[in-house]
């Protein structure tokens, strides 16, 4: 088990190091988040009440769209640099690669989400403070759900024609429950209600996260070989 955890850690460390040196995903994703903000503002108009009521949906739409771009690239660095074999040579259970990649994705997505959240609060002039404790629970649960399936599907589509098209087409329908649950729970949190009001949604999210993680761990080796 320690060896397994160490392998997960090495993949995670490698991905974060590559990201820190190249800043390939993070910079573009943060800029993309800012662009989305403008798009939402332009398409909804300046009416503040309307923006505020649509905010939970817009927020998660932003996270999902950024996720589509970021997660879809999970396995492209290895592919573009011809070092997929290096990854494949990881000894032992291949699911360690999955967990390491997933952890790296969650880190990057987490940073992007926090920045997008802050930008939304700033530009739409919303008081996020009372929603923050709730969001601190909802955000990680939603991100794990999104990234768990996203990382698995990214490994599939990285090896397939028309991957930019196929990745969202596969991921989005699967993510409908995560989107419904996170948006509903965020609505509760931003309205200042106690998080217990969103209890069933959080349970559903946690359940979905576990299901996605287990399937990812079990099936990942079939995606990699060959």
């Amino acid at each position, binding site marked *: 088990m320690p060896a397994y955890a160490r392998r997960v850690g090495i993949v995670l460390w490698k991905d974060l190091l590559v990201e820190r040196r190249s800043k390939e995903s993070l910079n573009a994703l943060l800029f993309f988040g800012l662009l989305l903000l403008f798009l939402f503002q332009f398409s909804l108009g300046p009416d503040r009440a309307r923006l505020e009521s649509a905010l939970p949906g817009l927020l998660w739409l932003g996270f999902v769209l950024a996720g589509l771009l970021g997660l879809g690239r999970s396995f492209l660095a290895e592919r573009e640099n011809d070092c997929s074999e290096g990854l494949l040579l990881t000894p032992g259970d291949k699911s360690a690669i999955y967990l390491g990649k997933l952890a790296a994705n969650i880190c990057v997505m987490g940073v992007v989400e926090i920045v997008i959240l802050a930008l939304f609060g700033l530009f739409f002039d919303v008081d996020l403070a009372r929603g923050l404790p709730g969001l601190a629970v909802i955000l990680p649960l939603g991100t794990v759900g999104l990234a768990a*399936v996203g990382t*698995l*599907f990214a490994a*599939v*589509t990285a*090896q*397939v*024609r*028309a991957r930019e098209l*196929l990745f969202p*087409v*596969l991921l*989005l*329908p*699967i993510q*409908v*429950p995560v989107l*419904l*649950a996170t948006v*509903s729970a965020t609505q509760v949190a931003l309205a200042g209600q106690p998080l217990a009001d969103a209890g*069933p*949604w959080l349970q*559903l999210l946690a*359940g*979905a996260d576990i*299901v*996605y993680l287990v*399937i990812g761990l079990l*099936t990942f080796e*079939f*995606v990699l*070989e*060959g």
Partner: protein
Amino acid sequence: MMPRSATTRVLGWLALLALLVGLGLAFGYAPRESIQGNVQRIMYVHVPAVLTAYLAFVLVLVGSIGYLASARAGWDRLAAGAAELGVLFTGITIASGSIWGKPTWGTWWTWDARLTSTAILFLVYVGYLLLRAMVDEPERRGRFAAVVGIVGAANIPIVHFSVKWWRALHQPSTILGPEPSPIAAPIAAALAANWAAFTLLFVYLLVRRIEIARLEEAAFLGGARAR
């Protein structure tokens, strides 16, 4: 080879016969519904189609797990054929429900829980078929598709609950529910006959589809070897 295709042919004729009998029962034997009128007869297509689609998606899951566990191409062909037919029958379900919904609910489409989850099911498996279309090599295609098939199937209960809490308007299921069915006997009989007919049709099409997939793969591998 010969006896197998003869059995398939018999199955095909049986399916056709059953469909005709089902049609006859739906229009001749089952009474006209007192409130909805003849529109209600769409149910004889709608309900068997959705039950057949469920059967198909269960088979996709079975085929996917079987393929990952054994790496035998037959499992993958089962999953692929069942997925195509599942999408077909889900499409029939949505279309027939829509035609029924316009006169009954007054709208072609509404974001009710069941409608939405059926539509999501449709989208998930259309994605599955798109993925299959993007990979030529049968072995890789089988592995990738199986992973997506398993995620899609495991997602069905999650979608079900999330969408149910989101909203509900559709009448609860009368035949799969826990209470004794309140459907009048002739209507139930016509429904059962149509269900059986749809299932026969499904099995027939599935057998044919698997056979075609086997020939396609043989041709692909043969072509690869010749090159």
